[in-house]
């Protein structure tokens, strides 16, 4: 894992000290809220319905036991004993007092954490594949490049006041777990015909009120040119992106207004000007960063664990968890263990301080001290020996963290919605809870297979509804909560934006609607077809009919 050098440590400490002064001046009335708001947003501090909210960065979703323990400490000391993992691999605290935030940030800085790049019109915290460095299907570990992007983007003077926020995601697998096609910039590491690794560069994807799947503007960018090419894209956007209209300010609007071809031309032109001007890192520096991400000291183990096979025999619950929540590791004898933060009827992404500590202990003992946060609001222990999986599962079960539903119908993404958020029109969490309860049976969930439901409480789409196989968008109709259903979205390598299927449904009807859609899928599917496959094969109309005909 990356460790701070003296520059990182100084930057974070100085930023925390600076914000302490700004908070003091706000509390004394020396600063008005108007003056203070942009300053607090630069430090990840929002004001929500009931309290302030602090969003803490977890760069590319990778963190350690020590950091997780500190997050638990912060949840107890400064919040109400819990935190909430977000769709950008960050964690949010929902109740910190403004007067306490400077101390909270100091506590985080001690373990190399901060709230920088979690808000404001800057390049946000870079996100990546939660299985990075562990996945059997990756070309190479994408995190060194994420860290290089982090260092380049943090406090980048030219890109601190962009037209709008800017999100970059990186994957190194053909199975896209980082939603790179719906980011401002998506990067996919892959091998070309010559066997070299480079980036596919995808620009102009995004969700929100105007969703787009991004356009590939370069099939293969040699890795060493990453920063100069990113800089060229950001320069074009910074200059040409709209600043007159908040709703048209994201790069996706620019790319789609200009056309991807013309946009590509502008970027290539800019790149030709700057590519030799010393932006790209020297080989030694690239190697220095890579050294931080050297693989842990994996043991030489047999691919199959005899002990594990014995443990799963006769323990159906454990066997199911293995089937659903663990994933192939690139090293024989190891597995990737997913920790679901979606207990049946629970609040997606929420985790108590005690649960955080349980996960920290497990990572410490069984996963080389590493934890990952996923953009689907779950956690991962990336490197677990197969023979330890039973021990890990028992601890998770005792902590209420062993729900075997990763990728299944109850593994729902939901934004905080009107229960917390000032922007929301409707609640999201209660809908997620009720769908999860309605379809609680895990046998049934497993038989339904991969089915991604994503719920947003307003058009800003923090719950990624546009890319849900079933998406649910909350809309306010004269003060009443209504929910619009979209179908056929995907955030994966086959990215697509879901289509609205018809009139909005009341909060009472939307859970029935989801059940009808699921039943209809079951009746239509052929062997091995996922919900999304059936939708793409037969189209929207039969689903619409199933949804509205009998009503």
């Amino acid at each position, binding site marked *: 894992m990356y460790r701070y050098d003296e520059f990182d440590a100084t930057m974070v400490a100085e930023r925390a000290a600076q914000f302490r002064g700004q908070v003091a001046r*706000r509390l004394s*009335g020396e600063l008005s*809220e108007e003056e203070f708001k942009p300053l607090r947003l630069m430090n990840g501090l929002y*004001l929500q319905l009931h309290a302030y909210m602090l969003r803490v960065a977890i760069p590319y979703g990778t963190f350690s036991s020590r950091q997780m323990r500190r997050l638990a400490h912060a949840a107890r000391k400064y919040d*109400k004993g819990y935190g909430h993992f977000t769709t950008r691999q960050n964690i949010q605290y929902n109740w910190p007092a403004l007067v306490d935030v400077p101390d909270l940030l100091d506590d985080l800085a001690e373990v190399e954490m901060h709230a920088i790049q979690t808000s404001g019109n800057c390049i946000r915290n870079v996100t990546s594949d939660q299985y990075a460095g562990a996945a059997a299907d990756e070309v190479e570990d994408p995190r060194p490049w994420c860290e290089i992007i982090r260092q380049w983007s943090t406090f980048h003077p030219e890109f601190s006041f962009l037209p709008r926020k800017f999100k970059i995601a990186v994957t190194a697998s053909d199975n896209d777990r980082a939603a790179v096609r719906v980011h401002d910039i998506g990067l996919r590491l892959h091998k070309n015909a010559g066997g070299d690794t480079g980036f596919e560069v995808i620009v102009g994807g995004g969700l929100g009120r105007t969703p787009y799947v991004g356009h590939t503007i370069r099939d293969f960018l040699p890795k060493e040119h990453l920063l100069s090419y990113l800089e060229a894209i950001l320069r074009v956007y910074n200059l040409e992106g709209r600043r007159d209209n908040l709703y048209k300010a994201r790069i996706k609007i620019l790319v789609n207004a200009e056309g991807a071809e013309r946009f590509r031309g502008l970027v290539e032109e800019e790149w030709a000007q700057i590519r030799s001007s010393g932006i790209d890192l020297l080989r030694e520096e690239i190697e220095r960063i890579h050294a931080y991400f050297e693989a842990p000291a994996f043991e030489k183990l047999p691919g199959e664990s005899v002990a594990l096979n014995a443990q799963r025999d006769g323990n159906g619950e454990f066997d199911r968890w293995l089937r659903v929540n663990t994933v192939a590791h690139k090293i024989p004898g190891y597995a990737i263990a997913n920790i679901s933060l979606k207990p049946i009827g629970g609040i997606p992404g929420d985790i108590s301080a005690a649960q955080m500590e349980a996960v920290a202990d497990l990572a410490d003992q069984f996963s080389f001290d590493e934890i990952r946060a996923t953009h689907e609001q779950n956690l991962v222990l990336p490197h677990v020996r197969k023979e330890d999986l039973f021990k890990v599962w028992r601890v998770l079960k005792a902590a209420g963290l062993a729900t075997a539903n990763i990728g299944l119908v109850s593994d729902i993404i939901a934004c905080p919605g*009107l*229960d917390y958020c000032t922007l929301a029109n409707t609640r999201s969490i209660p809908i997620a809870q009720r769908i999860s309860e309605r379809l609680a049976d895990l046998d049934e969930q497993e038989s339904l297979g991969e089915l991604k439901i994503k719920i947003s409480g307003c058009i800003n789409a923090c719950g990624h509804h546009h890319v849900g196989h079933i998406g649910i968008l909350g809309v*306010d109709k004269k003060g009443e909560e209504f929910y619009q259903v979209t179908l056929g979205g995907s955030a994966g390598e086959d990215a697509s934006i879901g289509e609205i299927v018809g009139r909005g449904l009341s909060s009472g009807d939307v859970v029935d609607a989801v059940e009808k859609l699921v039943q209809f899928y079951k009746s239509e599917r052929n062997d091995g077809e996922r919900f999304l496959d059936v939708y793409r094969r037969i189209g929207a109309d039969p689903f619409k009919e199933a949804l509205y005909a009998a009503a």
Partner: protein
Amino acid sequence: MKIVTANSLQDGAVVYLGDDDQWTPQLSGAARFEDSDAKDVLVAAQTRIEEITDAYLVSIDQDGAITGRETLRETIRKAGPTVRLDLGLQAEQCA
């Protein structure tokens, strides 16, 4: 009728302007203003920047209940998250 609500500067908690011109967490303690006077009261409240932030008006009916399009939002602000009844003012009132 209108009441003035805001978030307390120190901790962000929801507060209402009371009859004694102090901020109270209880909606029942909120001072009621005729629509015609409410704007001036709000402008005055907004100058109290050492105490609160984001002050605005909320409509109430004759019985003092929140009314209008923002009823759900204001009800959640008043009580706490509907998905965590152990948090927010609703928790204190149950205890």
